[in-house]
């Protein structure tokens, strides 16, 4: 063992290994990785009947709970971005910092089957299915590598599947894609999020109401003068940006929309006529200078709520089954309908489909074109 200079290699190598080994026992376990949108493995329960799973579970555990793992995840993201990659973490990085999620072919058989069945069960209720767009479909000009391979096919399936049934399809996806210039559409969507802002959402809601009016489902058109748009000078925490450890700019075009008389509306968290709750229980708000995210500035993802507007021009109850793209639109609908009931089936709540349907005049599904909405399907079922 003569060459002591070899220690220059041996000592740092084992020092790194041992330091992280020691740190792994000092660091407390984490539960969730925001960057990867998944729960992290925890120390496994010992099951001696299945020893092979114990070792693989421990492997997962030590990897997920590795000291400073979120730092390594961030470094990985930076490396990938520095290489100019376009497809990172199942997100397409387009020019000018636009981020698009990966899209998948969806199986709508179960969902649409139950919607059709419900429309037959409740013949006095009008059923509408608004196919909301995804960002990829609306902004094809930014997708130089044809990253989105599923949205058009999913849309075609949805457009055809309700033909011959008493479900009115409102194709918002094609409307939003074709009725605006690319520059206009860029103002409707958050660059670093899945979602649109209130500008895009309100355009979609206006189109839905207009289509209902054209189809004589409702008698009162939307009065745009009853809506007010507000720009917020805050930093925006996009969901997709979070997966890149916020490597992209948080300066976004943050727009909210509200009805001018929204303070007169009453908000409820149950189907019973109990005490109303404050507006901010249901709808978030933000001030200039805040760091805000999508779920914090529009309606929250609450399992059930309803909005009553006694002065509404349309004396009907609209029941909306939603996904998160609906969130900014509640005030737009509330400005037209006397009662708007919003169901988010992703959140469990002790309310049944039959209960919801008791006072419904119109049922509106507001789900994006790639969303097979298994929770909504299960709720209707």
């Amino acid at each position, binding site marked *: 063992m003569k060459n002591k200079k070899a220690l220059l290699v041996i000592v740092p190598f084992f020092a790194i*290994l041992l330091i992280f080994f020691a740190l792994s026992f000092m660091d407390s376990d984490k539960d969730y990785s925001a960057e990867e949108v998944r729960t992290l493995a925890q120390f496994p329960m010992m099951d001696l009947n299945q020893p092979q799973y114990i070792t693989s579970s421990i492997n997962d555990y030590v990897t997920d709970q590795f000291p400073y793992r979120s730092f390594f995840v961030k470094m990985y993201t930076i490396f990938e971005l520095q290489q100019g990659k376009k497809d990172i973490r199942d997100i397409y990085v387009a020019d000018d910092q636009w981020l698009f999620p990966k899209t998948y072919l969806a199986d709508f058989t179960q969902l649409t089957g139950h919607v059709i069945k419900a429309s037959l069960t409740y013949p006095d209720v009008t059923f509408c299915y608004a196919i909301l767009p995804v960002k990829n479909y609306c902004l094809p000009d930014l997708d130089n590598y044809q990253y989105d391979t599923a949205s058009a096919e999913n849309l075609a399936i949805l457009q055809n599947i309700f033909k011959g049934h008493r479900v009115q399809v409102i194709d918002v996806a094609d409307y939003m894609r074709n009725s605006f210039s690319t520059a206009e559409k860029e103002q409707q969507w958050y660059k670093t999020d899945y979602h649109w802002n209130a500008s895009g959402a309100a355009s979609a809601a206006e189109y839905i109401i207009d289509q209902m009016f054209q189809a004589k489902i409702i008698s009162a058109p939307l009065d745009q003068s009853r809506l007010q748009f507000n720009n917020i000078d805050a930093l925006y925490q996009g969901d997709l940006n979070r997966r890149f450890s916020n490597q992209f700019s948080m300066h976004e075009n943050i727009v909210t929309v509200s009805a001018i008389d929204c303070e007169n509306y009453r908000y409820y968290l149950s189907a019973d006529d109990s005490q109303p709750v404050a507006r901010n229980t249901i709808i978030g708000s933000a001030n200039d200078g805040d760091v805000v995210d999508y779920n914090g500035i529009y309606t929250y993802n609450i399992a059930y709520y309803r909005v009553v507007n006694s002065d509404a021009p349309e004396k009907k109850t609209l029941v909306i089954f939603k996904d998160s793209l609906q969130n900014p639109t509640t005030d737009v609908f509330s400005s037209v309908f006397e009662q708007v009931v919003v169901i988010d089936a992703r959140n469990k709540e002790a309310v049944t489909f039959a209960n919801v349907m008791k006072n419904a005049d119109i049922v509106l599904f507001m789900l994006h074109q790639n969303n097979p909405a298994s929770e909504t399907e299960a709720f209707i079922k």
Partner: protein
Amino acid sequence: MVFSSIFFLYYFLPIVMLIYWAVPYRAKNYVCLIASLFFYAWGEPVLVLLMIGSIVVNYFFGLLLGHFSEKGQRKGILAVSVIFNLALLGVFKYSAFVVGSTNSLFNTTFTVPEIALPLGISFFTFQAMSYVFDVYRGNADVQRNFFKVALYIAAFPKVIQGPIVQYHTIADQIDHRTISLNKVASGIIKFAIGLGKKVLFANVIGQIADSIIVSGSTPSTTATAWLGIICYALQIYFDFSGYSDMAIGLARMMGFEFEENFRYPYISKSASEFWRRWHISMGAWFRDYLYIPLGGSRCNRLKQIRNIFIVWLATGIWHGAGWTFIIWGLYFFVLLTIERLLGERLEKIPSLLRHAVTLILVLFSWVLFRSETIIDAVNYILCMIGIKVGELTVNSSLLLHDNWLILVLGIIGSTPLIAKLARRLCDQPLMQEDGNIYWIMRMLFVCGMLCLCTIYMANSTYNPFIYFRF
């Protein structure tokens, strides 16, 4: 346990190495053996007993060979040992394939046994056979210490994925080996190179290959098919040679010296040269324990061809229980036979052309190797030659945009270019082997590689070792 995992790198390795270096010399073999059994049991907590059983039986075969001196008796013991080891492989690796194939061919309805394939069974069985062969031939003495036989067969650097170390090349090292700082540092560097090959190249390029080569589907364009198989060729090279480098490096840290297992196979100018550069330890095993005993090249032309046929049929079967592997082996039998028949006439073909043809033939061989069924392989080859395309749409332009750099580096890294550059660098006066700069450069390389690989390992769930299944 996988070398390129956080658990191995940050838990198993430092603990085992520190204990190994700390204990007195006479205890090192025991530490290594216990660590090896733990290592194997981590992946096969139950079937580790099978490996121990194999070690016990082969240990006794060795003792019996040492006890009997009469040629006939020794031959009988050897025959029984070969039957035992092949039976072990037959039951655990091939029984489902044999019964399934019998049912298909003869329309029978035998129940296909559902036997889990023990990790690395082909590797530890061949090493056990090597021990018995070497004792039989007198290439090595009988090892009367059971733990040393166990260490030879089960040593963790090579137990799961090789290299297939022949007993006579390591017998002395089990008894006497030196551990020097130079050797440990050299082992760490070798390990870091292997880790980088695996984590930074094989895993990344493997994801491209996996998205293109899909069982039951064929790519929709010829160009995509070529991209897929080139990626697979790079993946399997970096995967297996990376593992071998890590194994050699780990062994070196403990004082053992294993032979190189890969020498830039993709620069070969013939199939025979390719096999002198690819999985060298397996080629050597078949050469020493099968080809030469059959008569090797010292017999008439017909027998030579027969010998090549047997060796390559065995090589194909060794790699996997499937018709694609058998055909893959026979494909190389045909290539090597043609080369043998052409003899020196092959040398007259321009070097570049020979290289290109060899590379293309090897790429076609990987189609057979990678495909799960013969139909998949045929369809893929038809797609590669532009006769028939399939339905699998892959976003090749995006894959190339995102991965061109790693592919270019991978192609360069599969040639001796980087090694040559490194050697040239080391020839500079400042980089003399005993100089500070030389060692600082090595330290920076090792630490940089370790950190880079940790970043990728902490992120990745994609970490398969292709040769694990053999």
